[in-house]
């Protein structure tokens, strides 16, 4: 059955009858850096500041809505590399809290949970840490590099689930055995959550060294990262830590869904581990870390869904075999040159 172009949008935006939503992020680095270029040390800062930078500069998060837990509660300012210094980006600091479990748990309960309501969205990223299991996907524990703490997964999940009000929850988790958090009976899964983990429940996670020899990073190089973070942050920002362009956009719409993040990690030659996804609500293909999408210079010819806060459209065409669903929680702005070809399907929920 041929569907026809069914309307020309005569107004420039649709504003839904909802309260203004906030997009919050929680970044946790379960360790601390004390020197450059040292595996299981430097990346606790390197990967954290790159993840933070991406959220602020590319994903439309505000400083005040990103909660950062790291080390003893202060930024690491001793890197010899400019790109790992907050001042390089014009910031005085990025860290809010130390990474003691008691601090994390209490802050989640007493400070962050009361801030977030049903209209808001939550992004959780356990940027770098350790994990271990005894024998099953339900006995994962998280470990800290800088503390002798081990916290069971049920305790971790309960602590984060104290934040129970959100529209969408998007989780990225980088530790060994992190697949436990998407599998088994104890996990983060629910209909409003997508979680991507760096490895399966029974395997380790690894660093990525662009310059290595015999499995070991070569001394004195700048770009030591967890391989999962290399792929994820590069996909989101469109540029890798070496400064090369990085394309995580698999469906050519110029934005990166959670499903695409997983697909890129799952197929990347950078990855030695096997990333996992938990997506009980089948929402991964339509939710994004960025809640304010701009679709610009895009021609869509297949199935696409966008369930975010705001959508802005410029020079946007749905081709005759395109099937597009926009589900903005607040508004869709059509700034210029929107075209829907005869035969396409467009739905705005």
């Amino acid at each position, binding site marked *: 059955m041929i569907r026809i172009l069914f309307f020309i949008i005569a107004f420039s935006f649709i504003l839904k009858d909802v309260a203004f939503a906030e997009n919050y992020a929680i970044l946790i680095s379960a360790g601390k850096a004390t020197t450059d270029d040292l595996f299981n040390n430097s990346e606790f800062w390197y990967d954290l500041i790159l993840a933070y930078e991406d959220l602020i500069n590319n994903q439309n998060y505000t400083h005040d809505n990103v909660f950062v837990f790291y080390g003893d509660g202060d930024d690491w300012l001793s890197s010899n590399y400019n790109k790992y210094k907050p001042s390089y980006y014009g910031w*005085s600091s990025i860290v809010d809290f130390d990474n003691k479990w008691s601090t994390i748990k209490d802050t989640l309960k007493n400070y962050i949970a009361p801030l977030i309501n049903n209209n808001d969205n939550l992004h959780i990223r356990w940027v770098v840490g350790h994990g271990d299991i005894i024998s099953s996907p339900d006995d994962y524990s998280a470990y800290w590099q800088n503390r002798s703490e081990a916290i069971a997964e049920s305790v971790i999940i309960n602590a984060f689930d104290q934040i129970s009000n959100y529209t969408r929850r998007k989780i990225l988790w980088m530790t060994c055995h992190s697949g436990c958090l998407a599998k088994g009976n104890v996990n983060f899964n629910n209909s409003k959550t997508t979680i991507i983990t760096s490895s399966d429940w029974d395997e380790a996670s690894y*660093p990525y060294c662009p310059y290595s020899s015999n499995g070991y990073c070569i001394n004195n190089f700048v770009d030591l990262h967890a391989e999962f973070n290399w792929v994820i942050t590069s996909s989101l920002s469109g540029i890798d830590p070496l400064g090369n362009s990085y394309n995580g956009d698999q469906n050519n719409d110029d934005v990166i869904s959670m499903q695409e993040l997983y697909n890129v990690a799952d197929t990347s030659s950078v990855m030695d581990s096997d990333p996992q996804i938990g997506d009980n609500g089948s929402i991964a293909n339509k939710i994004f870390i960025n809640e304010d999408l701009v679709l610009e210079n895009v021609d869509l010819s297949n199935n696409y869904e966008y369930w975010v806060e705001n959508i802005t459209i410029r020079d946007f065409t749905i081709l005759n075999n395109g099937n597009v669903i926009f589900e903005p929680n607040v508004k869709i702005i059509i700034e210029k040159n929107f075209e829907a070809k005869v035969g396409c399907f467009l739905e705005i929920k």
Partner: protein
Amino acid sequence: MKSRNNKNNILPKLLIILISNCYLSTKAQNNFEISKTWEVQNHEVVDITIKNDQLLLLTSNNEIMQLDTVDNYIKYLFILKKSSKLTGLTSINNDFYFIDDKGNITKNDNNGTFKQFRIPKNYHTEFLAANDSLFFTCLLNNNGLSYSNRIVSINKSGNDTIFAYIQGSPVGICIKEGYLWYLARQGIIIMYDIKSKEWTQIGELPISNVFGLALIEDLLFTYDLNTKQIIKIKIK
């Protein structure tokens, strides 16, 4: 800590960066000083330890060598005839202890395995250190660097627990006065309090690409892979 209202007050932080950079670079260069070297040709050193003030070397052929610091030469002591590959050597009081690639800890009294702990699939051990109650070894992923690479402690019953996750590529561990000293390939030394597990990076050796770590009083011994020499370093 990040000020939630003012993110742009950079100047004080820049001053801190300058001061801390100066401090760190000075510290790294001044803590250690090479005081003597010995040639060790034709042997691949796997681990080193100190027993009764003598430096002992374990080679890849399961040989035990001794450094004679008086007459300045390396002498052969004995070979352990085992089917497994020895990967670590330590001493407690007057006894030698070895660990092999199957997780067996053996005492050199020909009474067979002293302790054994389970090595996870795809992992191997390197290096051995001990105090009166615990052994310590590095448990390393066969693929190289992994966030599961760890130092484990093994008690007298053979039960192991995670002591710390390994930073860098490990090249040696040893124990001195309640602290586990750890050496990474690029010469970085980290000291762990055995009771609290808190760690401090105490400095960086003036050489890198080294292997093995032994300590006695204010002297540190390691093996330079580039020059094939045992290096004695004075800790200031």
